[in-house]
């Protein structure tokens, strides 16, 4: 079940959903140019840091034992976005970024639990911009900024400004209680892996 804007505001007030800084205003009024809430979505902004994968002779091998996280980090370059100096994302280029906002979906208040899904914005998509292409799910208990997988599939560069509305968040209610999924232990090689 997807939450409406009224239910999103209720969840924010009850602390079942925390967005910091909280997007404001909640409703558009006379003279207000921009409201981050639509009927069932919240706009999220681009943070001020992007990371650019380096070209090289390395290959990612998730089946090999080793420090995958460190390999990925070592082969990427962090860059800070400065106001008025956007990053020019060329056709076909891929970068990672984070939302400006930190999202929290606490489970300590009991059910109903909330999950979320990040989606692109149609206006950006018309220019060929993807802000995620495979990992939209925000799990219950998540706390942190959301990582955006940004790629320019358009025919012309796209300028990424820190603070620009880049994505939208859909909040969903999870039906029932939560229990860790045994499939998460899939690569452990003995029965002890499924204690």
């Amino acid at each position, binding site marked *: 079940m997807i939450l409406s804007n009224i239910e999103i505001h209720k969840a924010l007030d009850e602390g079942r959903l925390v967005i910091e800084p909280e997007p404001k205003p909640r409703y558009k009024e006379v003279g207000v140019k921009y409201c981050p809430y639509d009927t069932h979505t919240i706009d999220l902004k681009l943070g001020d840091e992007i990371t650019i994968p380096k070209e090289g002779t390395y290959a990612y091998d998730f089946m090999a034992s080793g420090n995958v996280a*460190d390999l990925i*980090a070592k082969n990427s370059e962090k860059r800070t976005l400065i106001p008025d100096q956007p990053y020019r994302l060329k056709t076909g280029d891929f970068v*990672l970024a984070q939302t400006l906002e930190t999202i929290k979906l606490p489970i300590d208040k009991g059910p109903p639990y909330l999950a979320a899904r990040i989606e692109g914005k149609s206006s950006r998509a018309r220019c060929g911009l993807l802000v995620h292409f495979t990992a939209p799910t925000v799990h219950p208990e998540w706390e942190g*900024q959301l990582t955006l997988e940004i790629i320019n599939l358009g025919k012309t560069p796209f300028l990424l400004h820190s603070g620009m509305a880049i994505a939208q968040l859909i909040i969903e209610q999870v039906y029932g209680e939560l229990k860790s999924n045994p499939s998460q*232990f899939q*690569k*452990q090689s003995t029965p002890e892996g499924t204690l």
Partner: protein
Amino acid sequence: MEEWLKCTITPGQFSGEYAVQGEMFDDTSFSLFAPKKDLKFSEEPTADKPVKGLIRIVQCAQKDDLLLVNLPRPTFENGRTITVKKEQLKKAN
């Protein structure tokens, strides 16, 4: 009392996160990106100087000297829940 798992820490892809490596009960590696609030280390790691540290965990189950624990973020290799040896944990206030 919080529980912490021994690990090795290097810089992540963003300034607010770190690359974390550790070992599961069968001596195979796990790795993940974790936020600073879930880590403890005495000096800031650099790309060419990893540091030994601790990562926050929640214990889910125990069998003999093995523990099933939840990490703050999913690993690249094996989901968010992994089995480790009890001796790999360190209690900290």
